[in-house]
């Protein structure tokens, strides 16, 4: 049973790991392969700051909220394991700021210690009238992706550095199931007008005195179009750009100035911070995550694709819940092909 995962960002690698962990022992013939044109540190996931935080509004998408929760709970459980540091996983507290009263977020009971800001705390952020404080998690792509890669390699998963042009290409080579975790470029494999880039740009600085994340919100102009500051273990990420429909991965001087000015206004101490890098990336935005099976007829064969893409600006936040869901879909496929007597979840 050959399974090919397309994409080696956080979604592709974690989906591969979930399937490997759950099915390898039950299905000795399982051969997992990962195909990607970009590997860490050149994936979209590597550019993300790595803060676990869903959007402030879930648009009523309860399924995504559950996947977010599953991810948070899973990561929280990993926090005290020896792997945590290598995974790039640690606790972090911080602030979400608003200029008008925000509705409670879907994740207020998922994170730790969620509360409204006190008037004295709001003094730190002139111009913002409301806000939240909570403790969440950081999962840095620069560490997490190599950690996932190592785990997969140790378990015999093979990696191929190539751009897959079509699902057919893999099926004609004898692959039985394809996991489509190709993020922004899923449209090249199968047109999807709902998948659009949400272009972001960030500046990396050295500001080790910043110990909290600060995410501001302008509820009218949409998510991540307002400054944010997210401290990591090696540098601090400054951002605040979300341009729907913009495919450019070039750094824009105008966006640089906008990020720099707005973040320095938010945290005056940043004026002294040394800039160590800049990056632009495309959030694979979609009205909802596409996580579903698709059966494709190829001659007299039925080929299976599991789609797992369109995670926008919350890929890290939702990844594990989606990986588990993808693994469940894979289990169903195995059952149908009568490869498995019983699915892994139920034990007789």
């Amino acid at each position, binding site marked *: 049973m050959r399974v090919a995962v397309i994409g080696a960002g956080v979604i592709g690698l974690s989906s591969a790991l979930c399937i490997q962990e759950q099915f390898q022992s039950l299905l000795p013939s399982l051969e997992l392969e990962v195909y990607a044109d970009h590997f860490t540190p050149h994936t979209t996931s590597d550019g993300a700051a790595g803060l676990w935080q869903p959007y402030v509004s879930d648009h009523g998408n309860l399924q995504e909220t559950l996947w977010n929760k599953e991810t948070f709970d899973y990561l929280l459980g990993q*926090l*005290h*394991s*020896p792997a*945590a*540091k290598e995974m*790039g996983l*640690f*606790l*972090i*507290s911080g602030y979400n700021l608003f200029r008008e009263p925000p509705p409670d977020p879907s994740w207020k009971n998922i994170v*730790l*210690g969620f*509360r409204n*800001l*006190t008037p*004295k*705390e709001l003094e*730190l952020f002139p111009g913002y009238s409301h806000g939240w*404080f909570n*403790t969440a998690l*950081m999962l840095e792509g620069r560490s997490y992706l190599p950690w996932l890669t190592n785990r997969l390699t140790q378990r015999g998963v093979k990696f191929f550095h190539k751009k897959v042009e079509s699902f057919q290409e893999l099926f004609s080579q004898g692959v039985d199931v394809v996991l489509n975790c190709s993020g922004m470029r899923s449209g090249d494999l199968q047109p999807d007008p709902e998948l659009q880039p949400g272009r972001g740009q960030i500046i990396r600085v050295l*500001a*080790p*005195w*910043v*110990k*909290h994340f600060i995410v501001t919100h302008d509820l009218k102009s949409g998510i991540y179009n307002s400054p944010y500051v997210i*401290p990591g*273990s*090696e540098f601090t990420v400054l951002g605040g750009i979300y341009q729907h429909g913009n495919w450019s991965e070039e750094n824009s001087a105008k966006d640089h100035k906008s990020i720099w000015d707005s973040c320095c206004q938010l945290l*005056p*101490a940043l*004026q*002294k*911070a040394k800039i160590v890098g800049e990056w632009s990336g495309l959030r694979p935005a979609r009205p909802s995550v596409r996580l579903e099976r698709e059966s494709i007829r190829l001659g007299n064969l039925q080929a299976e694709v599991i789609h797992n893409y369109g995670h926008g600006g919350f890929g890290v936040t939702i990844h594990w819940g989606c990986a588990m869901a993808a693994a469940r879909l894979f289990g169903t496929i195995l059952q149908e092909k009568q490869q498995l007597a019983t699915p892994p979840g139920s034990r007789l």
Partner: protein
Amino acid sequence: MASPKIAVVGAGVIGLSTALCITETCPSSSVTVLSDQFSPNTTSDVAAGMLIPHIYPDTPIHRQKQWFRETFTYLFAISNSAQASEAGIHLVSGWQIFKSPPKEELPFWSDIVLGFRPMSEVELQKFPQHRFGQAFTTLKCDCPPYLLWLEKRLKATGTQMYTRKVADLWELHREYDIVVNCTGMGAHQLVGDKQLFPVRGQVLKVHAPWVTQFIRDGDGLTYIYPGIHRVTLGGTREKGSWSLSPDAGTTRDIFDRCCSLEPSLQGAQDIEVKVGLRPSRQCVRVQREVLSQGGVKLPVVHNYGHGAGGFSVHRGTAKEAAHLVEECISVLQGSSSRAKL
């Protein structure tokens, strides 16, 4: 007395902040700082500089609260300014945890720090051996940066600073009109204060940049305080011990205790061991005194004995000491104008 000459003895956080307050309160005076040690070799440099007050049994609570509030307000403004990184002042959030119920549910400082509240059940799950906890956000003064920043502010006012061991306050009476004693543990010898005693503290300063939250056991013995570049792991409270040499067994013990609260510290690098003697006293001595010898008078203002709480109250006690210096100046000016009649 056109320009009173004031000697501040001691260049830790107390000496430097007191000198600075004097330049602000008595701008016509000329201030000189004298110390046998400057940053990075003061007791203050060993401390983590966390704003979590230590309780002085014999100082009225309202006075301690006033000192803490003034210090917090002062540092809060710096942390929010462009100078924050140079001054080494930053906000840090975290938890104080208890194995048995704390003496007071609401410490006197709970309304001065930010967002003080009890920890939730889920948060306490991170600490299986502890049953109660408090979550809040406070400030941290990293040393050396904070002391260096104070030195820079002082130099800008024209304050001179000299390395000099003062063995007797009377050495200074010819050159200076008023002496301010901020010698910390040195006051034991310098002014013979037997109420002052060392409480030895050993700490580890480690590289662990993924630790963003502070954790403090309410017993005050185990703590993890993330600073700008290093995390301070502590500690010990050895009353009466004068030893400044690091103890290897203690290092191991501190590391183990901290790792049990924060397992990821196993991966900490570049462990540096430091020792400081907290200049401890039942109450902080902020007091005016006039020394007298052979008909000569020497006004002295004392500001020492801050024990484990120096950073938490430094600005408040510095301001109080500066006001006492102002009083000394008035007395001197009063008596010198009387002398002119």
